[in-house]
Structures are given as C-alpha cells and as structure tokens.
C-alpha cells in the first residue's frame, strides 16, 4: 500500500479532474486506488486565528484566557489549558457549532458556548487530536501559514490521500513521482522533476571514503555521498507535513530527508554518522559466522551467513536494504553524514526480511519489488541537495559509486504493425510519443514505421515491444479500445472419457437422490490408516511440506475419510436415509515424478426411512438398497457390474461386501462399512459404501448406442420353483436361466426354506418370460426351452424342480 497525499503530488504535476475522477483513471490504468482518505472534510466553523493576548484565569491556575482574532469585527475570548499557548501564535480556532473530536471519547461532538470555572468561553483553540490530524494532545496546534485570519482551516490543512495498491511489476508506484507520471500521462500534462543540484567542495570523495562490494550478486550497485558540517535538528515544517500526510513520523532533518526521498522516488536510502564508521569506509558483504547486529529499532540480530550486510572496516553496521544499525545512526552530535543509496537483489532482501522481521520495512518492501539500479544515483543527488538545503554542510566532490551490476539498457523497438496487431488500432506517432514521454519513457521515432524506446531508471518492466504497447493501451484506456468477435475455426476437442464418465456418474447418482459433496484433498495419518484397505496399514501417500493444517499433512489416497466425516456430520440432521457421493481424485506417489492422480467415485448410504403417512412401514437402508443403486447406475452407464462375494478390503465387512468387475476387470467394491470404522467417525447404524475407479471403468464402457425394436409377439410366462443347496447364489440361477435364447427376462419372486424343504436346501421361485422377436411361441417351443433350462440347472447347480 502506498499513501499518496494529493498536496504533495501537486508539487510535480497538474491535473484538472475531480478527486474521484483522478482515482478512477489511475485505477483503470493499473494503479489501483483502494481508498480515498480525506482529512479535514468536517472542519466546518474552524478557521485560522491569532492569539492576541493571554491572561490568567481568575479561578484556575492551570487555565488561561486567550483573546483570539479570527478576522471578525470583534475578537473573542476563550478558556485554554494548553501549556504551549502564547501571544502571537497562529492557531486553529473552532467557533461555537464546530464539530470536533472529543479527546477522551474520540467521538465527534458539537462545540457549545460554555462557562469554564465561571468564565464564558466563546470557542476553542484546537489540538491535533481534536481536529483528527494525529493523536497529539499535549498542546494546541501552532500553524505556520500566511493565510489570512478567518480562512477556513480546511483551505490550509485539509488533504486527500489516495491509498494505492501497486502491482508487483511497478515498484515506481511506491513513489509520489511514479504516480505523478501516471497522472501526467492520463491528464496530458508533464511532470516537473524536483531540483537535485548542490554545491560540492573540492575534497574528492575518494579521499574521504571507499566502497567495496564483496557480493556483486546481492548488491549490484552502491553509492555513497559524504556531507560535512551538517547541523542536526528538526526538518522544515513542509517536509514534516509531507511525511505525516504520507503516514511517516518525522525524526530529524537527515533521517527525514532519506524518508522523504524514498517516498518521492521510490528508492530507499540510509544515512550513517560518518565518524562512527570504522576507517570511514563501506564494505558490502555476507554476514560472518556468529556476527551480531543491533538495529535502529533496538532488536538484536544473530546474523545468518546468507544475510547481506553493510559493514565498515570491522563490523556490520546495517542489514542491507532492511534497516540500519543502532551504533552508526544519526544523532544530535552528528556532523558528517555518509549517505547510502544502493541497489540490492530482491531475493536476498526477501530472505533476510522473512528471517529477521515480521512484516518488513518501507525499504525492504521496495527492494523486494526489484528496483532498477539506475535509480540510485537520481535519488542520491536529490537527497544530498535536500540535506544541504535543510541541514547545511557541504558535499565532497563526486559520488563513490560501485556499480558491478551495470547493464546496458536494452533498446526496445516497437513497430506500428505490432501496435496494430495487438491493440487493433494505430494511434498517431504524436500520440504514442506523447504517452511515452509523459510517463518519462524516452523514445525516438525511426521512420518509416518504428519507435525506439528505453526503460527509464525507475522502472524495470519495459523489455519487449508488448510492454510498450501495454503502456499505450492502458493510457488510452482499455475501455476505449475496440472489441471484436473471435474469428477463425473451432478446433477439434480433446477426448477425455474419464472426465465424461465422472460427469455422467454425477448426473445418475444425483438423479437417484444422492447429494454430491466436494471435500478437501488432504487427510491425516490416523484417518487414512483407519479407512485403509489393508487392516490398519497406511497406504503410501504424497506428503506436504507446509500443509494448511498440520494434522492433515498428506494427500488423500481414497475419498473415504472425508466421506465418513461428512456423513457423520450430516446424519443428525438427516431425517431420512441419507446418501452422499463424491467424484474426485486420489493421489498415489510415483517416485520422483508427479503423483498418479486417479479419478474415483465414493458413495456412502445408510439410515432409516421413517414410516409414511400412507402406510408404508419404516425401513432400514440395507445392502440391497446399495446394490439397487449400483444396478441402476450400471443401467444408466450401459454396463453390468459383476459381484464377486467378499470385497477383500478391510474397510468392509467380508460377508457383506463384494468386488465389482466389468468384463473381468476389477473396477471397485460395494458393501457394509465395518462397524468399528463407522463408529470411529461417529457414524451411527449400518453404513454402506460404493467405491468405483472411474479410471478403470472408463475404458470398459463400450455400449453401442443402438436399440432394438420391441417385439410385436406375445410373451409366454411360466413359473419355476427349484430346490437348491442353501448356499447356492440365487442370482446365478437367474443368470443361467436368462442365458437361454428364448428367455426375455427372469424375475426372482420367492426364496424359502423350512417346512417341506429338506434341511440345508432352499426353494427358489422365479417368473420366466419367454418371447421371440419374430413369431408367436407355441406351447412346444416353451416346453422345449424349459427342458433345456432345467437340464442346465440340474447339472450346474444340482437343482431339482420342486414339483417333481
């Protein structure tokens, strides 16, 4: 975030739109204004006044009576308790009726005429806190203004601050000048650069100091200027006002200049007390083993070998690009200043910032955005000029400038063809040059059709033609550029049967009353083990270095844990049987390669459907409800799932589960979740699970899209009652019957054991529907088919017809 006070901004550029319009144009062009902050908007009835007389209060020692001339016919007398009150002061005078901030409650309050210890007070002389300018309430605000008495205070002090959120490519938006250049381009005006010239003595800088860069990668450039004979004191009011308006605290004239120039140019600077530097010289290097440094804010650092430090001949005196050290700081007795203006590699600064500070500093924030090293010298000269202007002194001749990272600034060639190709418009040569020049981007027109452009020192993001084209486009305004429908042909789509299958499964299951869930991809070790397919052994999983939640530090290998948790959490609210499902990926480690991501379906079903008003009894969800769902899913997908009893998975009860396969290929499982597992997740009652590998199933689905015409010939229906071993799967009997060419369908309608049935056997009764597509079946046809079926059942299942 960058606070841009408009009064400060107006020193460099003119614009003629409203604050709102200015903020809007800046935002549209890429410098997003997140907020417009106003100070002084509420200062109705507060005007410039002068204290013409001060007398003691007759009834109170700590109060005095001030006579205030505020340009009206008659001066007024007010009661004032401020210790700094004095005759001749120019002050902010609040008339009766003004809205002021109550210094104790901090709420707005209307000023009334009142008696204080028996003397009537006709107004108030304000403190900064009462005006909402700052927290200051020790004394009254004393103004330094030429404005006539009676002038509204808001004309003198009020300001508007734009709160700007720069994008990572624009470190120059962390500076007033950077924003000024945007405003110039957007308003068609030009930027007035601040003065940066100063007298130099005839002592060459080389005689006073030297700069050695031992780590040119971490420090591409370091400049030093030495200024002798400075007098430390407060900085001028205008500079203090500027710093306060931008959210910084004034300290002394030297430090204020470094902060002022940082805000003005976006280049951080640091001032050392020259005399406190051993051998008066600078070495830029990595920290030594167990080296220590006390920073300006009093924190004591154990430096790490990766930290880049500014050192003198002996010890570290600053943590490069972040903060200066305490024992070389500017103090009241400083007479010679060494002014550092340097460039540091962003990654180095980021690392040290993260290692040693919580949120970084104004300086590190800028260095981390990658500053252009060319900027250093411009800021150094501006700061030297301001130091000499505000603190006196003389600069040595020249700048100590080590610049190992100097690179030839590339010239970017931009053709008119490219501008038109990207923007679909071709602005005139003058328009293009006008935009670039206002932004401070130097440019030449190379007839017949090109511009030569180079990146200015305060930016690093103008490297290819399209970078320049963005500048042109954004200043013209994207909303002013043309819009056109997409031309050309539609490309052939990629086929993704797994994705398609996942979508079909979603449709089918949600159509059968299940609710789709989407859960997190991370799981914990315990829940992963508890739902494992191999009893209490964890499946190998992909681990995360910095998971969001330390307890869920691995990628899921199944959708089971979150499914169970979600079922449990919803069970209490579900007033009927509940079914949920998820289609999602699981992750399996794959050596050093990317994990294998497998698309899975996982559904959980359970609970009780209560008795209905219409007479249907209450019913517990059971295995065959789950199986019915699976069968319908198969119908919808055009396949049949074969069930092999016993899922072979410790997640399910062995005798109440089955492996699922299609065409002999295993694709999943179905069955009842082990009660201990369900209970571990707080699921109550029987719980049934269906798990399918969409990845395995997708290639097996080869249903033809064609359908058969229904037969016009009548069906013949016969019932068969068979006696078989109790363990014989009835479904297998039905399947064997259905195999017969004349059998259209088979329906199981009764299974019975008990009276009249030998022990260890059971009776299975079925309806068998015979039908031919091309003729009416005769009794003989059916009789023949039935004999064939019975023969097969006798040999395959040792089945006997119950009647015979």
């Amino acid at each position: 975030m960058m606070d841009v006070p408009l009064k400060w901004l107006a020193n460099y550029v003119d614009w003629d739109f409203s604050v709102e319009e200015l903020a809007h144009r800046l935002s549209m062009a890429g410098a997003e204004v997140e907020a417009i902050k106003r100070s002084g908007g509420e200062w109705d009835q507060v005007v410039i006044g002068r204290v013409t007389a001060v007398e003691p209060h007759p009834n109170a020692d700590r109060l005095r009576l001030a006579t205030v001339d505020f340009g009206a016919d008659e001066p007024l007398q007010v009661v004032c308790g401020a210790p700094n009150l004095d005759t001749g002061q120019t002050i902010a005078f609040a008339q009766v009726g003004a809205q002021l901030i109550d210094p104790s409650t901090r709420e707005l309050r209307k000023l009334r005429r009142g008696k204080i210890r028996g003397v009537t007070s006709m107004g108030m002389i304000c403190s900064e806190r009462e005006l909402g300018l700052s927290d200051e309430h020790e004394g009254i605000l004393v103004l330094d203004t030429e404005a006539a008495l009676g002038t509204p205070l808001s004309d003198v002090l009020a300001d508007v601050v734009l709160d700007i959120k720069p994008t990572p490519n624009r470190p120059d938006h962390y500076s007033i000048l950077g924003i000024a250049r945007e405003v110039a381009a957007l308003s068609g005006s030009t930027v007035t650069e601040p003065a940066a010239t100063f007298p130099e003595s005839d002592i060459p800088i080389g005689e006073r100091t030297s700069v050695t860069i031992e780590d040119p990668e971490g420090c591409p450039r370091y400049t030093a200027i030495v200024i002798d004979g400075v007098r430390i004191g407060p900085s001028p009011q205008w500079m203090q006002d500027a710093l306060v308006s931008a959210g910084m605290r004034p300290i002394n004239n030297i430090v204020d200049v470094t902060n002022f120039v940082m805000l003005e140019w976006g280049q951080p600077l640091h001032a050392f007390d020259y005399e406190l530097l051993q051998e008066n010289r600078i070495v830029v290097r990595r920290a030594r083993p167990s080296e220590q440094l006390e920073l300006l804010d009093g924190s004591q650092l154990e430096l790490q070998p990766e930290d880049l430090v500014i050192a003198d001949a002996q010890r570290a005196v600053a943590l490069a690009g972040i903060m200066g050290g305490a024992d070389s700081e500017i103090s009241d007795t400083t007479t010679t200043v060494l002014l550092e203006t340097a460039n540091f590699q962003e990654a180095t600064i980021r690392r040290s910032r993260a290692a040693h500070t919580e949120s970084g500093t104004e300086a590190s924030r800028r260095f981390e955005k990658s500053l252009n090293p060319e900027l250093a010298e411009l800021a150094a000269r501006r700061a030297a000029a301001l130091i000499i202007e505000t603190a006196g002194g003389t600069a040595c001749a020249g700048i100590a400038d080590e610049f190992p990272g100097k690179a030839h600034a590339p010239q970017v060639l931009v053709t008119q063809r490219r501008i038109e190709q990207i923007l679909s418009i071709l602005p005139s040569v003058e328009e293009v040059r006008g935009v670039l020049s206002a932004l401070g981007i130097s440019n030449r027109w190379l007839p017949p059709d090109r511009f030569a452009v180079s990146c200015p020192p305060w930016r690093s993001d103008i490297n290819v033609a399209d970078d320049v084209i963005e500048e042109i486009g954004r200043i013209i305004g994207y909303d002013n550029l043309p819009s056109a429908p997409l031309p050309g042909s539609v490309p052939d789509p990629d086929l993704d049967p797994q994705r398609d299958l996942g979508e079909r499964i979603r449709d089918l299951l949600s159509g059968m009353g299940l609710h789709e869930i989407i859960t997190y991809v991370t799981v914990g070790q315990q829940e992963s083990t508890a739902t494992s397919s191999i009893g209490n052994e964890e499946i190998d999983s992909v681990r995360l270095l910095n998971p969001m939640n330390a307890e869920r530090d691995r990628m899921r290998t199944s959708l089971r844990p979150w499914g169970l948790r979600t079922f449990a959490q919803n069970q209490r609210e579900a007033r009927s049987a509940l079914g949920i499902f998820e289609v999602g990926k699981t992750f399996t480690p794959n050596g050093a390669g990317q994990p294998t991501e497998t698309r899975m379906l996982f559904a959980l079903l359970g609970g009780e459907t209560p008795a209905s008003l219409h007479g249907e009894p209450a019913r517990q969800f059971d295995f065959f409800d789950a199986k019915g769902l699976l069968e319908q899913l198969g119908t919808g997908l055009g396949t049949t799932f074969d069930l092999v009893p016993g899922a072979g998975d410790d997640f399910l009860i062995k005798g109440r589960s089955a492996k699922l396969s299609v065409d002999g290929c295993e694709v999943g499982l179905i069955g009842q979740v082990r009660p201990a597992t369900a209970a571990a997740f707080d699921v109550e009652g029987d719980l049934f699970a269906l798990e399918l590998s969409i990845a395995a199933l997708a290639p097996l689905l080869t249903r033809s899209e064609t359908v058969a015409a229904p037969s016009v010939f009548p069906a013949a229906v016969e019932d068969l009652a068979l006696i078989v071993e109790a363990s014989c799967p009835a479904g297998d009997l039905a399947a064997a019957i259905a195999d017969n060419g004349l059998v259209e369908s088979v329906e199981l309608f009764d299974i019975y054991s008990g009276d009249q049935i030998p022990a260890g056997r059971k009776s299975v009764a079925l309806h068998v529907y015979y039908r031919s597509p091309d003729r009416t079946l005769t009794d003989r046809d059916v009789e023949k088919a039935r004999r064939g079926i019975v023969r097969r059942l006798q040999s395959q299942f040792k089945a006997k017809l119950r009647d015979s």
Partner: protein
Amino acid sequence: MDDLEALEAEARASLAEAGDEAAVDAWRVAWLGRRGRLTTVLRGVRDLPPEVRPRVGAGANRLKAALEDAGDEHRTRLLASAADAESIDVSLPGRNPPLGSLHPITLTRRLLERTFRDMGFDVVEGPDVELEEYNFDRLRIPAGHPARDMWDTIWVAGDDDGPRQLLRTHTSPMQIRYLERREPPIRVIVPGACYRYEATDATHEWMLTQIEGLVIDENLSFAHLKGTLEAFVRRMFGADIETRFRCDYFPFVEPGAELGVRWQGDWLEVLGCGMVHPEIIEDAGLDPERYTGFAFGMGVERVAMLRYGVRDIRHFYRNDVRFLRQFEGRR
C-alpha cells in the same frame, strides 16, 4: 311409428331412474336384452305388412342404437358423479421419489463450461500436483521474482533430487501443457482445483476452483480478448450487463487486464486476463509475430457466490446437507 316414439319415451324415462351401475345393467336387460322389450318389437317386425315393414324395421334399429348410446352415456355420468361424491385430503404430503443434488460448485462449473463450449471452446483438465517449473518458471515467474508473492504456495515434501512439486496455485500451468501437445488454433478452458497457503475466512478458502482460458490463433488482438470475454459475461449475467477492463498485472500476459462487471451498483472483479506473453508463444515453438492470443482465469466459487447469494465461501466445502438440499434438482 307412434308406438316406437312412445316406446322410446318410456325407455328413456326408465333409464333416468337408474341410480347406479347395476340398475343401468338391469335396464339394459329389460330393454335391449334377448327378451327385452325393444328386441321383442324388432322380432315382431317380420309379422308386419310388407309395405310398412322396412320403415318400422329401420326405425326400430335406429332406436336400438340410440338406446344403447343413451345407456352408455348414463353409465358414464353415474360413474363420474360417484367419483365426485368421494374425496381425499389433497393437502397430505405426496410420496416423493428421491431427488438428489449436484454440488453448487459442480453446477456453476458446468454453467461456465456450457457457456464457453457454446463459444467453441474445448474443456480439458490437468494435474493438481504440479511441477514448480510449470506452475511458475515457465509462466515467467522464476524463483525470487516479486510476482511469486501473489501466490502463497503449498509445497510437496519430496526427495531433493527430483524436481520440486507443489499443489498448483492456479490452473495456468495447463496453458503450457496444452501448448505442448496442440497446435493453433487453440480455444480451450481448463477447470480445476487450486490451492493457496492462505488463512480461511468468509471470502477466502485455501482450496478453490478456477477456470483458465487460452485462445491462440493467427493475429488475435486485444479486441478479440474484449469481444470474447464481453460475450461470455453477457451470456452469464444478461445482455444488459455493464463491463469494464482495467489494467492489471500477471507475469504471463502482456498487456494484462482485469474484467469487472457492474453488480448491484458496485464494480466487481470477475476475471483476470491479458494477451499471452510473446515469450510463452515462442517457448511453445510458435512464431510470436504470427501467432498471438489471450488467456484468462476466474474463480468458480466467486461466480457461485454471486449466483446463489452465498455470503460465506466456507459453506461450499462444509457439505452441510441442509445447504446442499437447496440445490436438489438444479441443473
């Protein structure tokens, strides 16, 4: 003939007195049955003199048909009024066939996919666990680049020898992967989950769903980016929607932009977009002077929040069935 008329009047009067189905049946037997009165008349026709025989015979046959119709009609009327007399309490609840729900993020993702498919886009997916190279470096975000701060990353713990892996922070890596296997013209969207190391609150989730778009062809310009995305927004939010493009920064596009729509009075960011950076075109082995294009990315949760009036993003992955049930039957 008078006899026939009198007979008809008598039969109809008798029918009118039949108060239930059984009485209609009895009436039928009495009049039209084998020994019924009209049957008897018909049988007597042959004893009539030849000159009147045809006339009386035809009249009697017509009367028979008319009485049969009258009987049927009377029976239908009786049934209807019997049904009217009976009533059930229709305020009782019905027997509901089960109606499940698709997750709101699925619903919204599909809406977005449909909208783009209608505009000729293909839909593909990519891996959730990505290589650092694809998620960052090849999108012009090298290590140490200030733009890496835009995405707080969850890293995969791995052996030091393999390439670094992470949970993708955006769907943009699929731009590179798709370009590796396809030639222009390219017109594709990539829906998928993304992950950010970011504290969760009402507007932030660490897991989110993005839709990435990539269009590359000969001589596509910013005008086509605008035209395409404006058309998308019109289809999503209605023809009257007000849009704006403001400059924004993403390392893999140039120029970069953000598309906003006027939503209930405020400008609301819908997606980030821009012209594909020429270096990315070049890295894909294409001539950036010939091929240009644009890319865009948007959050599905954000669209879902607008669409369904959901104010807290955390509802989506809590999967509370009371929340999900409200999406029953929606498509």
